[in-house]
């Protein structure tokens, strides 16, 4: 070509326009395509994480059936059931006015409490005071995902060490109770906080030792494994003493009636929960009932064979029936005895519960070795 094309060739320019337009068009089309692809990738991402049947069912299970919504509804049912049962035991009617049998009373209470002004006392540590009740409810609700509601499908998670993890969560509860008592600044709540911590030291060790029995017999530390090991015989039949010590220690660590020192209303008004009002009171009050439910669910999983039961019923329904019966027994025992003094609680838990729990574990070990028929009943090879 040599030299510079000085003259502007109008016709060549004119012939280049369609090719230029095509370039512009492709460029715009590239952008649109990029956006559309991005949207499509996002939808695909959504599909995979949520609407893909496998993941969707996991979300359904985690959030709806045996997960959060079911547990919170069960919590509200538990509070209503306890108040109705207390009423009947004390020869009076429980909540009556709202709903057919006082059913809506709980929702009315919840709305009223949430609407109430939450007063923060002067010498309370402000942000700690607001944060602890929420933390307490979260910590108490978390272990529910390890409960073996059903064998094949309707359960959320099954770790090999879920029993240890559940107790790891539950040891945090008295620390929060102590902190809440200390942080809310009044003498009575301080005493209540110390009593809550003291209650826990008394009840923690017998409870954990009495869970060694089922873990030993099932040969695995996961709640699902323990539940599956009880296909042929329930551990309650083999370890009755452990069932009793676990129940009593559970009542002591929750801090309800016979071991009611942390919330002794005739001595220290409402214990460490005195200063909480409004939404904070709701959270701590529900945390107590959630803990009760958790322990009764653990009893069912560890000793009463979890989903094992009537063959024609699905596993989860068996579990729930046994859970209701255990919860009924929880409320019955907790409304039959006077309140024990704090040092008496520690005295009984260490002097009576601990040796009993140990005794049963030793009996279980000896029974496995020496009783011929027993080993056959248990799936001896790992969980």
């Amino acid at each position, binding site marked *: 070509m040599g030299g510079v094309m000085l003259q502007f060739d109008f016709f060549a320019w004119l012939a280049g326009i369609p090719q230029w337009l095509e370039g512009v068009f492709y460029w715009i089309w590239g952008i649109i395509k990029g956006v559309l692809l991005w949207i499509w990738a996002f939808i695909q991402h959504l599909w995979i994480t949520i609407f893909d049947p496998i993941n969707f069912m996991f979300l359904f299970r985690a959030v709806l059936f045996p997960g959060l919504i079911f547990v919170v509804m069960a919590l509200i049912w538990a509070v209503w059931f306890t108040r109705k049962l*207390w009423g009947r*035991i*004390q*020869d*009076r009617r429980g909540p009556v006015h709202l709903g057919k049998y006082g059913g809506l009373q709980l929702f009315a209470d919840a709305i009223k409490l949430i609407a109430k002004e939450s007063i923060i006392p002067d010498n309370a540590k402000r942000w700690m005071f607001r944060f602890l009740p929420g933390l307490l409810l979260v910590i108490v609700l978390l272990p529910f995902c390890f409960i073996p509601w059903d064998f094949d499908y309707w359960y959320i998670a099954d770790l090999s060490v879920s029993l240890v993890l559940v107790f790891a969560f539950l040891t945090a509860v008295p620390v929060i109770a102590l902190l809440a008592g200390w942080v809310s600044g009044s*003498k*009575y709540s301080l*005493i209540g906080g110390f009593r809550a911590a003291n209650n826990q030291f008394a009840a923690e060790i017998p409870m954990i030792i009495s869970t060694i029995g089922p873990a030993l017999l099932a040969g695995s530390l996961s709640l699902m494994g323990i539940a599956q090991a009880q296909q042929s015989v329930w551990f309650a039949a083999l370890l009755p003493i452990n069932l009793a010590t676990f129940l009593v220690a559970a009542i002591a660590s929750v801090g309800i*009636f*016979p071991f*009611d*020192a942390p919330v*002794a*209303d*005739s*001595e220290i*008004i409402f214990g460490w929960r005195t200063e909480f009002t409004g939404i904070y009171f709701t959270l701590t009050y529900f945390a107590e009932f959630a803990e009760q439910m958790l322990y009764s669910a653990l009893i069912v999983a560890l000793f009463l064979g979890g989903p094992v039961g009537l063959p024609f019923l699905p596993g989860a329904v068996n579990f729930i029936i046994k859970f209701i019966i255990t919860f009924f027994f929880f409320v019955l025992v907790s*409304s*039959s*005895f*006077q*309140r*024990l*003094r*704090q*040092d*008496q609680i520690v005295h009984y838990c260490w002097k009576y519960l601990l040796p009993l729990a140990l005794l049963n574990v030793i009996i279980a070990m000896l029974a496995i070795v020496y009783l011929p028929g027993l080993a056959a009943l248990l799936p001896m090879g790992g969980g």
Partner: protein
Amino acid sequence: MSPDILEEAMEVWFGPQHVSAHGWATKLTLVGDYVVECDPNAGYFHRSAEKVLEFKNFRQGSLVLERMCMLEAFLAEYPYIAAVEKISEVEVPERAKVMRTIMMELSRLHSIQFWWGQFNAELGFFTMALWPWVDREYTLDAFEELTGSRHTVSYSTPGGVKYDFSDKFMKQLNRAVERFEDRLPKFRDMQMGSPTFRARTENIGLYDVKQGLKWGLSGPPIKACGVPMDLRKDDPDSNLAYDMVDWEVPITENPEHPSQSDALDRMEQRFKEAEVAVEIIKQLIPQIPEGDIIDPKARAKTNRLPEGEAYGRVEGTRGITSLWLKTQDKAQTAYRAKIRGPCIASYYALKDLVPGSKFADFIVIFGSLDPYPGWWDR
């Protein structure tokens, strides 16, 4: 108290607004869980009853006294009436004497039933708190059937009683007594048989009967130590019918600590008092004589009283309840009336009884002495 203990002590007000302090305030000095000093303060219920009595004529005065302790209204109003009858020498018909005694024993039963519920509520046991209160409803129905009001009954007046026994009332009375009797074995299981109750009340609030008398305690807290000190036998009142019944003063002898009493003995003592009260009622019902229920000249005689002093006393559920009355010649109102309630001693006794015990035992010791603020605050 040696200073080094005191400097780390914590002062807690078991104050007037406290849930189970029904209107009395006690300052406890705690070291750890132990009570080191206990300083009871009276005065939150003071209604100046003695000044009010100087402006009430002799038919209205018993209303003031009855409101000192509404649980045992028939027993609380009686000292004023006994004092006025002593000064005015009005004679009470036989029928009124027997009716008064029956209603006073029923009021004692009602007061014990109420105290059961309150003591168990303080121990945190609401099941056994509400069961006695259900039986108490039957006795209250009997009161309302007879006098028209459940608590402020204002039943007897100087010279007799105001209302007559109707047969509907006799049915209610028998129903209340039977209801109490067939629930008693169940209550014994739930109360004395309960291991947690025994754990909470054994060797709690232990005092010797000599020390108790020095504080001024009387009634069940002294009878629980084994001393049969009961005004119904010691100082029998001519206007009541305790002599028509053969009964024994109920006492509780505890072999481990012979002349002392702890919270468990006082509870056992109240079981026995309730049984004796029911026994007296059942013996008296067939012996109600015929006749009018009030001395016809009673209104005239008690309108203006001659100069004089009298000391009316009755064995209340909580101890000796008395009223010292001084009247001026032909005056319509009392010149000076001094009300002495039994609970002024039991609240004062806390000063020396509680130090040394645990913080959770304070409410058990005081609950076992059956406090009622109306008596020490007047």
